[in-house]
């Protein structure tokens, strides 16, 4: 299984270039942690890696069909139960053992509760349990530990470690040290200085 690679990547949000010159390799079984201040483009980078938006320049390998993306907005429906929500995504990806995913994030007792009645931390765990069900080797996680208590963070770290142990890859945008062996990429160094990337043909000097 090959890893995740980015070559000379530049990403933009709403037509504004944010990050440029990004190149990295993440080997199977290892993790990458993205750090940087708010608004620097962590989410935009993750969305670009996930194939939800095209890169401004550069390329990402592999494509989106091996990548699972997890963000704050977890796509869970409040009126469906925990098990129903997970069953839907498990069927969409044609793989995954719901019971194991529920167990991994201590959700088994809550399986018949409507998602709208979960606490913020429980809800977050539900979103992370979905990642297990995608059956995809590359996890992209945007601030995965927000609103998790200490115990849940440890369980989450265990799940990520298990995923890595199975040859998976994780890319995390996070400020919390999870105690996971990972390379760290500080995005400040790749912030676009005005005028260095020609993302917009109209910003050139030639137009009268």
């Amino acid at each position, binding site marked *: 299984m090959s890893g995740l690679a980015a070559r000379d990547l530049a990403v933009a949000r709403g037509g504004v270039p944010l990050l440029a010159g990004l190149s990295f390799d993440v080997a199977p079984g290892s993790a990458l942690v993205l750090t940087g201040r708010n608004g620097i483009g962590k989410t935009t980078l993750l969305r670009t890696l996930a194939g939800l938006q095209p890169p401004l320049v550069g390329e990402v390998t592999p494509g989106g069909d091996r990548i699972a993306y997890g963000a704050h907005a977890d796509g869970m429906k409040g009126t469906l139960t925990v098990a129903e929500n997970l069953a839907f995504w498990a069927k969409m990806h044609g793989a995954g053992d719901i019971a194991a995913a529920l167990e991994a994030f201590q959700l088994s007792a809550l399986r018949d509760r409507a998602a709208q009645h979960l606490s913020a931390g429980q809800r977050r765990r539900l979103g992370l349990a979905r990642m297990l069900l995608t059956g995809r080797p590359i996890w992209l996680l945007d601030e995965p530990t927000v609103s998790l208590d200490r115990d849940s963070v440890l369980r989450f770290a265990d799940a990520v470690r298990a995923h890595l142990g199975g040859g998976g890859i994780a890319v995390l945008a996070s400020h919390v040290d999870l105690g996971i062996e990972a390379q760290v990429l500080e995005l400040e160094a790749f912030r*676009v200085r005005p005028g260095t990337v020609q993302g917009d043909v109209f910003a050139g000097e030639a137009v009268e």
Partner: protein
Amino acid sequence: MSIWTYANPAKFMATTARAVPILSLLAGACLLGGLAWGFFFTPDDYRQGATVKIIYLHVPSALMAINAWLMMLVASLIWLVRRHHVSALAAKAAAPVGVTMTLIALVTGAVWGSPMWGTYWAWDPRLTSFLILFLFYIGYMALWSAIEDPDTAADLTSVLCLVGSVFAILSRYAVNFWNQGLHQGASLSLDKEENVADVFYYPLLVCIAGFVLLFVALVLARTRTEIRARRLHALQLRERMA
């Protein structure tokens, strides 16, 4: 040098800076000449009297109303396939001109219809189709103005223009079907081009040329404005980042 050179904003601006005044002058000359010829130096129609002279406004504007949409369709396709920004902006610039042409065609048609048919409005298939075209233009322009990011707006309006074109043609046939279905035989045809006499025909041609030139000049001028607005937008973004 290929035609795509003009897709570069700088090249486009440089070329059109010279072309717009010339085109505007030609358009003005054709319109003045054609309208004066048509209004004052052609005889009254034996059946319609002086009212026939409204064709010098009505027919060219109706032609341009449809051609403007066609031009927007072509420009949208070029944007979707080749991602030339000038093309997307030209489509945006053409819409208000097209909607004005449609409005002129509808209003002159109503003014003409009053003495001829005794009514300002009839649900004739052709009139109805123009009314629907008018609605399509409004929707297209509304979508442009609703979306903040210019590239997103260009993409979505292009898709709308494509789908809208299919439905516009469909509506044209549906409206034909509908009216025949409602009023058996009693159709008010506007097919004047076929039976228009030579004496009306030549000034009409000059007027049509004038409207075409006017359209091109207006669209180019408006595209120039759109390019400047885009540049302003890009520079403001850059300043905000700094």
